[in-house]
């Protein structure tokens, strides 16, 4: 028997938590001498009030969906993949190589191959930590942290010494050819009012597809069944004849691949070139997104949108309110993570009591039982 109706669990509680987080954020805004109400309005309007806002919100969300799913899949196998940052960076490398090395006749072909490369590069970067975990018991948290650093060193080297356009100052690859330009929201759905400059592009649909596929994988396939079983209990998994090494490897490869796929959005869809530090913390945000989304693709999707809103709304706030600095936005994000993710029992516990007592009263009223 559940303590609360499902709608309260999945909608009401997170909503109250977000409101609490925003209230506290309001206090911080007040502290720096601005109006919280106005700030709130700017954020919401900036993120969701226009096609322009949505274009950025969903663009950021796309990144977070990929990295969030990556962390979530690993979580199902009880592994904490902190390496999304490095895996996504390597995914970018894969995309760049694909886009630069072949004169693609059409973006769709390029996207297909780039997806493959992004996933393979990301997965490859997760493979060594996974193998060491499976075979040597080396803790995946340490190895993936280390691989983040190694990835950044590798990328700096390659961008400066191999891919840089001769004579250019910027450690970045050449711009990709126009042929691999991905259709963006304005190309696909101009009637929604998107402008040609919107960064939201077709990879958003890829992210949605990824959500669906991950959901299928985890909850509908044998492999997903085995991954979850292994994540819940390794001894039981062995009892059922599930091979731990295989599960660790596969789960981490999928995780790394998903992180790598982020590059189709950020590198191929938006920047159209590979720059230094192209991930910009999305790997870490992915951890928060996966945790807040309780490792469920729908939850990950919603949490990613929330973070997209915070990113884009935050940017607008910063543009419009000079006193609000970008660190202020980080604080707001932190408070949202804290209240919705870590402190949600603070809201849940009293709510459960409330619903229980309501139900008791219902029962007392109807003596039929």
């Amino acid at each position: 028997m559940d303590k609360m109706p499902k709608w309260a669990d999945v909608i009401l509680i997170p909503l109250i938590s977000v409101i609490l987080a925003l209230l506290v954020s309001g206090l911080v805004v007040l502290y720096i001498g601005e109006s919280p109400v106005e700030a709130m309005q700017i954020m919401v309007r900036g993120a969701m009030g226009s096609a322009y806002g949505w274009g950025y919100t969903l663009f950021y969300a796309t990144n977070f969906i990929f990295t969030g799913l990556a962390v979530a899949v690993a979580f199902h196998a009880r592994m904490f993949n902190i390496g999304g940052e490095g895996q996504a960076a390597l995914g970018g490398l894969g995309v760049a190589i694909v886009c630069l090395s072949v004169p693609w006749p059409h973006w769709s072909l390029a996207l297909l191959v780039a997806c493959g490369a992004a996933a393979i590069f990301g997965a490859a970067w997760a493979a060594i930590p996974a193998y060491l975990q499976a075979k040597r018991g080396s803790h995946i948290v340490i190895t993936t942290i280390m691989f983040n650093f190694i990835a950044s060193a590798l990328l700096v080297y390659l961008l400066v010494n191999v891919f840089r356009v001769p004579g250019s100052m910027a450690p970045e690859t050449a711009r990709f050819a126009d042929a691999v330009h991905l259709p963006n929201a304005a190309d696909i759905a101009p009637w929604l009012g998107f402008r040609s400059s919107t960064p939201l592009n077709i990879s958003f649909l890829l992210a949605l597809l990824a959500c669906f596929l991950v959901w299928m994988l985890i909850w509908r396939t044998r492999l997903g069944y085995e991954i979850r079983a292994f994540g819940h209990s390794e001894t039981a998994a062995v009892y059922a004849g599930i091979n731990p090494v295989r599960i660790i490897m596969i789960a981490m490869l999928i995780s790394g691949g998903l992180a790598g796929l982020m590059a189709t959005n950020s590198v191929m869809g938006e920047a159209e070139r590979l720059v230094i530090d192209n991930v910009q913390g999305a790997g870490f945000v992915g951890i928060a997104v996966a945790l807040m989304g309780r490792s469920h693709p729908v939850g990950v999707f919603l949490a990613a949108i929330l973070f997209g809103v915070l990113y884009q709304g935050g940017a607008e706030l910063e543009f419009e309110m000079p006193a609000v600095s970008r660190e202020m936005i980080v604080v707001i994000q932190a408070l949202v993570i804290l209240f919705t993710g870590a402190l949600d029992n603070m809201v849940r516990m009293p709510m459960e009591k409330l619903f229980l007592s309501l139900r008791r009263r219902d029962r007392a009223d109807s003596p039929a039982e």
Partner: protein
Amino acid sequence: DGPALVFDLGGKFDRSFNEAAFNGAQRWAEETGGEYREIELQSDAQREQALRRLAEAGSNPVVMAGFAFGSVLDTIAPDYPETTFVIIDSVVDQPNVQSIIFQEHEGSFLVGMLAGMASETGVVGFVGGMDIPLISRFGCGYAQGVVAANPDATVIANMTGTTPAAWNDPVRGGELTRGQIAQGADVVYAAAGGTGVGVLQTAADEGILSIGVDSNQNGIHPGQVLTSMLKRVDVAVYNAFTAGDEIETGVTVLGLAEDGVGYALDENNAELITPEMQEAVDAAREQIIAGEIVVHNFSDDGTCPVAMQ
């Protein structure tokens, strides 16, 4: 209406490059009483967003600090033919863009000479933020200057890191400095953003000389900072703001001749720079301007004529 300034990811208070841009804008605002808009970026994707917003809001000119804007500006500039964009540290070939390039190697050459002359051990150090072409340009010009002043001198070069943390890690900056001191360095030049704070600090703590970068950092540790390699980003921004709508497009190269780069001399380091040193450096400056000395630009071919350790 009104000019606008976009800072790079380092943030406007990085005590060097972005802060110099900020100072230029502030000076313009104070002198003219005008108002300008500014944006600090949070992520790469916001580059384009910021530029477009400002252009659409009618800001003119839109000035951006940092080579990383190059590629983005190249794509968006044609969309706003009415707006003039000014990009610092990169060349963008569009009719409505003014590209400002600094000859950092020339300025670095001068402070390198000072370092070479000030050094008693014949060993000097360089701490860069990340091994990227821009930083190598500083380092290479510096090394050439050192060797010009003291052909037997050794230049030790270190880079802080490969992640964004490389620009904000004074502790590692300090540690690298200590390592260089241990290898005999008694002058160290920092081109590493916030990390440089740690370099200058450790140099002061350990009683050796340091050289600041971009802005005049002599005052951070008076009497202990030999000089600063000035990169007059502030002047560039100030000029762009002042020119307003009438700004010229095309490429502007700011070197020693234009006073775009140079070395800082003020009351904080007056005692450190002997008249002979000043004489030698000023002479070199003239020669460079006259083309008698050619300071090799690392970015030209990715190599440096002087070996660093």
